[in-house]
């Protein structure tokens, strides 16, 4: 049995949750004012994910960086690996918002896409 304290970020209230973990599942939770707290605690404890955003190099007349994002939230532990993958690449204009700049791979389990269109 293990106790975990976390702040729920599902809404601005920011409840402080106390979760008791038993046998790889949450056996009880307190501090949450609504059901969202339980859902949040489940993912946050067992597989925390975040949307990753950063910039990459671009060959363009007008810009030197292209903002990019993971198409869906990525596991928190993968963030720095994906960032270092992205440091290696450089794309060329024109680019359209939504274009894939880094495909899914074993190290990056989600595609990274352009957040903005750059014409030239």
């Amino acid at each position, binding site marked *: 049995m293990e106790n975990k304290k976390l702040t729920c970020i599902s809404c601005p209230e920011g409840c402080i949750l106390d979760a008791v973990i038993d046998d790889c599942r949450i056996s009880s939770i307190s501090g949450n004012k609504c059901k969202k707290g339980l859902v949040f605690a489940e993912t946050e404890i067992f597989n925390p994910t975040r949307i990753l955003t950063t910039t990459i190099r671009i060959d363009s007349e007008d810009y030197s960086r292209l*903002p990019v*994002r993971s198409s869906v939230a990525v596991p928190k532990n993968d963030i720095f690996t994906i960032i270092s993958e992205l440091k290696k690449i450089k794309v060329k204009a024109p680019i359209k*918002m939504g274009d894939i700049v880094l495909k899914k791979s074993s190290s990056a389990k989600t595609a990274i896409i352009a957040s903005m269109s750059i014409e030239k």
Partner: protein
Amino acid sequence: MILIDKEHTNKECSLAIVGGGPAGLSAAARAWELGIKDIMIIEREPYLGGILPQCIHSGFGTRIFNEELTGPEYAQRFIDLVKKTKIKIIKNTFALSIDKASKRKIRILTTNKYEGLVNINAKSLVLATGCRERTRGQILIPGNRPAGVFTAGFIQRLVNIEGYLPGKKIVILGSGDIGLIMARRLKLEGCDVQGVFELMPFSTGLKRNIVQCLDDYDIPLYLSHTVTKIEGRGSLSSVIISRVDNKLKPIKGTERKIKCDTLLLSVGLIPENELAKTAGILIDANTQGPEVDENFQTNIDGIFSCGNSLFVNDLVDNVTDDAFLAAEKAFAYMNGKIISRNILVRILPGENIAQIIPQKIYSLGNVSLWVRAKIPLKNAVFEIFTENIRDGFDKKPDNIIENKILFSKKLRFVFPGELIKINIAKDDFKDIADAANGFDIKALLRIK
């Protein structure tokens, strides 16, 4: 002051919009939808989107698009929308001053390097000039003036647009959302972020940003702390941090030196209204934006204000909504449907309230107020009551009326980092206006 010379080139349009950020783009898109044909957006930068292209993190558009977009994506959606229309986009052009050429003609003096000075004449004008950052001078930190002290937005631009890092060892002063977002951003780029220091006993940033930007990366947050000295010759070498007491004064003996090469100041934003002032637009001391009515119209007929130039917004979705409304009202004005009348009520911020928008209301209808709290409160109540003395100084007995509560609304929690929207139905508002009977009304927030 620049004098408007009749010899300048003149361009005509029906609706002019200054600022091509989300507020300006949203207003333009809505105005086009309503059928206004000749719309001009005047933007000083070579690109559209305002500050959004540099806000690369996600958290935009959850309400308008029902998706969590990044700043550039939110902007791109509106840029794509506007590009499909015949809205004229005048980039690289600075709006210098505004005046009224005649009762129904607003003249905007602009300049760019291709055409020099150009007058743009419009029937109506929407100001969407955004905001700027407070700088170090405005918070007066003693010490040297070495290189390495930057505002948050400037660093955000440097890193996300230009592609440069300001330094390697970072101290952040101010825990508003921009400070928190930049703490994470610099950490992801490999910087050593020493901590975020906040003067107040609470963070003004969103809880979710504290979790996602600081806790995720083990960046410490120190409340009730401030930078009391900046050290370094030529470039920054360290800062002195002190704890502050409950009057926000540094406590002697708590000083601590932190080595760093970059001090990031995230100490707030102020609406940008130098342009508005040239037209004689009245500025509210609390919001630092124009004083407006329920139509977002300023004291000058036909000139409307929205977005961060009206008051600093935390959510771009709200900026878009308000810009839509400003465009609708500008359209109504152009069709002679908004006529200036007498002020029905004037609303003043009272206890625990930092800002209220609009500041005055002209006509009877449903009313929406934007309210910013000064401090976080749980189980609070928002109340409107009559200001009991007319004009503040006039204390003649017949001018004193009872301090009556005219409206109240319970709020589970209030938080300075999040604007509160208070909707008052027409009937309730009529009661308020009747009871106020020409007197100012005041609003407050208190614990229930």
